[in-house]
């Protein structure tokens, strides 16, 4: 019941706004209540600590195929629920109270719908609704970028993200269908994730077939996570999107693909990851390792050469997804724990950055970094908050981002070289290369900070400080990052028990 409330509260609030309820109030009430409920859920799951599904509710909609509107949370989904409710609350708070022109309600409706979609997807215990809920964000995102987006390219960008993600989702859909169809026993088709996972453990699907389905899922999920080379939608879209949408999309929704890899692709295709696609050929693992390096190194370089803050942040969020994939590719509990933690940390930190970026955008005439400078003297509070956010993002110890990254790195080497295994495998080589990304992210973040806030004043700009509200939002998110950064076990103990891995 609690879970249903969490998922449907935003939808109800959105409907209420659509029918004329005061937008900001309704959205705040719903997201605030959700924040509370999300904390309760996470707390309960953490206290149970048994890796089982909790708060389960299921209503069977169809017998054949077995389709259930079912929800439940374990540690992994509870973490992501927590992330979602925090970011949603913050996104609603920083939404403008009054929008010029029309569509005040749309701001809040879209935030709520994106949140509801993410929550539904993270909590669904049914493959169908897992997929379906994610798509709830499609139209709000399209409308918001088009109506309230920034920049001259916003129309093209709105199209790009919509069609790109639409296409990615369809590829994913094809993969999911192939998956469930090959797993389902004759006459007993089911979408139940738990049952499918059980069936997969039986191992009736040929490894070669598994590998191909895995590849399709990788492309489908990868597109949604902006895995290289399916990433080019992300940076421009985040740059163009209104602040709350950018926060929710980059912070929360993007994690769906990673979650899907962990919830669906790996458990249901236990042998697919390391099986050659053709005799003696590449395995999905090889491909994933190469692609994630593309994210970290190649997109990292692309990030360096961005000239506008918003584009840079967008590209950086693409880059960081590489680490999450790396954690998943470790295929051990530590790596997966690190990956989930990474999703959480990155979600909060990128939302924070976009919130600050949005605050700056409202106060400056440009976000082109080379034309700014020295703002630290004019707006010290903003500069301090941004510094926190930037350092979180580049993985400074004390922030959750660092803790998650280091977990992933250690996981990649866990037991890899001891005993007989003297010698680096592909995963370790990839990790070593990925580590260079730590340098890259420091380069672009510090460059940005230096160009915007440090040095001599660029032009005579006298922007206002962030409003107390924005400040509160930023402090809240920084506090979350610091808390979980200092005590990573807060999250890892929540996630840990749920990491039932294939093999």
């Amino acid at each position, binding site marked *: 019941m609690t879970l249903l409330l969490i998922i449907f509260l935003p939808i109800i609030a959105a409907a209420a706004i*659509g029918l004329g309820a005061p937008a900001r109030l309704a959205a705040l009430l719903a997201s605030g209540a959700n924040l509370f409920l999300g904390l309760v859920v996470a707390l309960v799951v953490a206290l149970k600590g048994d890796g089982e599904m909790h708060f389960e509710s299921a209503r069977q*909609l*169809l017998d*054949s*195929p077995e389709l259930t*509107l079912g929800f439940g949370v374990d540690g992994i989904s509870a973490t992501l629920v927590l992330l979602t409710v925090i970011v949603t609350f913050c996104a609603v708070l920083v939404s403008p109270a009054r929008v010029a022109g*029309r*569509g005040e309600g749309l701001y809040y409706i879209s935030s709520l719908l994106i949140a509801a979609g993410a929550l539904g997807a993270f909590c669904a215990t049914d493959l*169908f609704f897992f*997929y*379906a*809920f*994610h*798509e*709830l964000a*499609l*139209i709000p995102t*399209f*409308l918001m970028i*088009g*109506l309230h987006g920034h920049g001259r390219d916003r*129309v093209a960008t709105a*199209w790009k993200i*919509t*069609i790109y993600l*639409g*296409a990615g989702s*369809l*590829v994913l*859909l*094809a993969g999911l*269908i*192939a998956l*469930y*169809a*090959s797993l*389902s026993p*004759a*006459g007993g*088709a089911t979408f139940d994730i738990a049952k499918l996972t059980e069936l997969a453990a039986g191992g009736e699907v040929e490894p070669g077939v598994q590998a191909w389905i895995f590849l399709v899922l990788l492309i489908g999920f990868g597109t949604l996570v902006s895995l290289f080379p399916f990433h080019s939608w992300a940076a421009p879209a985040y740059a163009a999107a209104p602040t709350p949408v950018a926060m929710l999309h980059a912070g929360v929704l993007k994690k769906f693909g990673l979650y899907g890899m962990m919830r669906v692709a790996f458990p249901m295709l236990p042998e697919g990851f390391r099986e050659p696609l053709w005799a003696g050929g590449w395995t999905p693992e090889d491909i994933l390792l190469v692609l994630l390096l593309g994210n970290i190194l190649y997109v990292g370089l692309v990030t360096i050469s961005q000239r506008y803050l918003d584009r840079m942040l967008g590209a950086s969020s693409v880059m960081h997804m590489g680490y999450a994939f790396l954690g998943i590719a470790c295929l051990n509990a530590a790596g997966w724990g690190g990956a989930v933690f990474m999703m959480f940390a990155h979600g909060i930190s990128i939302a924070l950055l976009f919130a600050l970026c949005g605050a700056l955008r409202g106060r400056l005439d440009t976000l082109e970094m080379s034309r700014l400078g020295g703002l630290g003297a004019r707006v010290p509070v903003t500069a301090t908050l941004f510094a926190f956010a930037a350092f979180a993002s580049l993985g400074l110890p004390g922030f959750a981002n660092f803790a998650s990254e280091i977990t992933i790195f250690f996981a990649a080497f866990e037991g890899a070289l001891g005993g007989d295994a003297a010698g680096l495998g592909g995963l370790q080589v990839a990790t070593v290369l990925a580590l260079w990304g730590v340098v890259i992210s420091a380069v672009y973040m510090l460059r940005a900070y230096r160009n915007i806030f440090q040095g001599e004043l660029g032009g005579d700009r006298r922007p206002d400080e962030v409003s107390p509200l924005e400040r509160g939002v930023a402090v809240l998110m920084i506090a979350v990052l610091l808390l979980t950064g200092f005590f990573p076990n807060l999250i890892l103990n929540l996630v840990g028990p749920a990491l039932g891995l294939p093999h």
Partner: protein
Amino acid sequence: MPAYLLEIFVVLLGLAMLGMEAFAGRGSRATIGLVGVAGLGLTFALLLFAVCCPEEGLSYWGIYHFDRPAAFYKGIALLSTMLVLVMAREFAPVLKRYTSQAEAHAGLGEFYSLPVFVCAGLMWMASAKDLITIFVSLEVVTMGFYVLVAYMRRNVGSLEAGVKYLILGALSTGFLVYGIAWVYGVTGEFELAAIGEVLAGGAYSERAALFAFALVAVGLGFKIAAVPFQIWVPDVYQGAPMPVTAFLSVGSKAAGFIVLLRVAEPFLGAPAINGPVVLLLAVLTCATLIYGNLGAIPQTNVKRLLAYSSIAHAGFLLMALPSVAGGGEIAGPGGGQAISFYLAGYLLMTLLCFTVLTVVRAGTGAEDLGGLAGLAKRSPLLAFAMLVGVASLAGVPLTVGFFGKFFLFNIAVQEAMRSGLWIVVSVAVLGAAAGFYYYFKIIRAMYWDDAGADGDPGGDAALQLGGLTRVAVVLLVLAVLFFGIYPAPILGLLG
């Protein structure tokens, strides 16, 4: 009561409406449409509660069969006709402008009663299981459409559409009859079940059977708007009166698919000729998907856009066709079920869109995307309804359109895993992705674009819509969303 009474009742209803047109006073003519809606509604109720559904299929005189799918398609026919009549009432002002100037005495009674006759044809077709009955009922439907398309006889577009539809339709009828003759020649039967037995038996000329199938496929491909026989669709959709376009896209397509499902089954079930048939269907599917989806991209006239979209949907539906013969091996709903479900969903969302468009057309006189500009402001309800309808057409999850598409993809993927024809799935994925573009173009027009920017006549004035239409729109929106989450009622009807 026996099911065939329903058809008789509907025909009588149509006749009664014509009679009202001829004999009733001027004032009561406005109620003809309402009478039609009410009568069809009554029939629908009878179908649901008095007739439906026998445990086993019933057969009368060997030419009329009644089972769950038959009941289902009768329901589809009744519902869509009702909605078309609702739309027709909204559209009446436009119709009057293009018909009654010269002949003031001619009312709109025919325009209301013809769909009712078409509906009777559709209902009968749902019960037809031999080629003769199928042919006759199909022609009843087609003939009604010829008249309806060309109904606005002072409107050049409508007439041109009527002529094009007439000539090409007749051409396709020629091929269909010729094909039926060949099927009969090869198998010596008209009963589809018997044909299936003969074809499965194997003592016939494969080449001749395939030739026969190709001819029938040409005739039916025309009805469902499959490439390369789709060529009439854009022009006819554009030219026909809006309610007729809606009826065409739903009724004609449903009719075509009912028949195609039944006729293709024996051929697909015959091991000897299954391969070429599947291959032909795959080629047609790909061509249809590409043509419909890509052709829609540059369109600016909404009706024309929806025409291409209708072609695209035919492509999606065709994906499931190869599996109708071997339904048991599919995880999830089989081909027949999936297609039927899709058609039901398609009915809801298409008619929803056309209802909105009819109101807009009547209010602003515009049929291009510019006419939709600023709709969100002028009528939030209509804009939202259109949004839901379009999203459903595009296959956004949690709408009935997604479920439909999902079931079809489900079959296509599984077929591909069996046959290796992944090209169909790939084309479908690309097509559906392109679909996001042209459907969202409508959303964009309604929400982003400002009314009056392109100097459209409607300006910012709020749009008027009648009470019945409002109810219909709201119900359709709710239905699209409801069945998008809970499809069981529709699937349950299918058995």
